């Protein structure tokens, strides 16, 4: 088995932190897009509802 010296391992923590930030930022962005999608999908002002007045609209 290959035995790694201390210098060969130098920077490993930096590598893990950098990868975590890069992957994490992509995941956060994807999550933000997903939350916007849910907001749009659940919005009461969907195309049909907004263009069609409710039957009770205008009643006193």
């Amino acid at each position: 088995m290959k035995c790694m010296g201390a210098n060969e391992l130098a920077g490993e923590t930096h590598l893990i932190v950098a990868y975590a930030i890069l992957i994490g930022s992509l995941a956060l962005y994807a999550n933000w897009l997903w939350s916007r999608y849910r907001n749009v999908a659940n919005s009461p002002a969907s195309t049909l509802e907004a263009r069609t007045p409710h039957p009770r609209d205008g009643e006193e």
Partner: protein
Amino acid sequence: MVRIPAHATALLTLGSVGLVATIFLGITWAPDVNPSQWRAPAAYRIIFLHVPFAWTSFLAFSMLFWGSLRWYLRRTERSWRLVQSGSDLGLLFGFGVITSGPIWGMAEWGVPWDWADLRLNTFALLTALALFIVMARRSQPDHDSTRDTIAAVGLFGFILVPITAVATTIYQKRHPGVVIIESEESGLDPAIRTVMLLGFVSVTLLFIGFSIISDKLYSAEAEIELNLKALDEMHGGE
């Protein structure tokens, strides 16, 4: 109701698989660098994502520039959506570059930043420009005059892209030079180049998938905004 296109989901899936493969191959297959010549040999593997993020950020800044230009020429909603998605994605990938770069710099150089290096500083300015546009879009009322101002920043800020791209060729202070283009100086191992190219393809697929979904969402949000206004006017007029 807005639907996420199937091809965008497929691109995101492919890009994610490619990204995992890039990390796996970058750690297990790409050769070690000579420990006697590098202060932090393990940290060099940051380039497998850092460089693809940098390239992709240029694609995002190009989208921002194209959208800004089209906004001035045609003033269409589609052009404005390019500005919106371009600035969001420019900030996302730019942020990745200006965080992973200094982390590598800290390990290898002993300092995270060099204020005398042209590429570091012009790229930081580009990311700051994307941040400014994102913040301005969110804080200012959405009028044509606001869009004009933001598009002007996107249009003229693009000059930083070619300056950043050639910065290490014309004025190399500390940032490593061009590594992918074959030259006597680069001497890049074929395995390292292959992993880096796989990373670039993967991050580009993610970029395209994100762009398509972002465009759809901005379009749907604008439509809902219009519908809400129409509803308000309908109720206000009664």
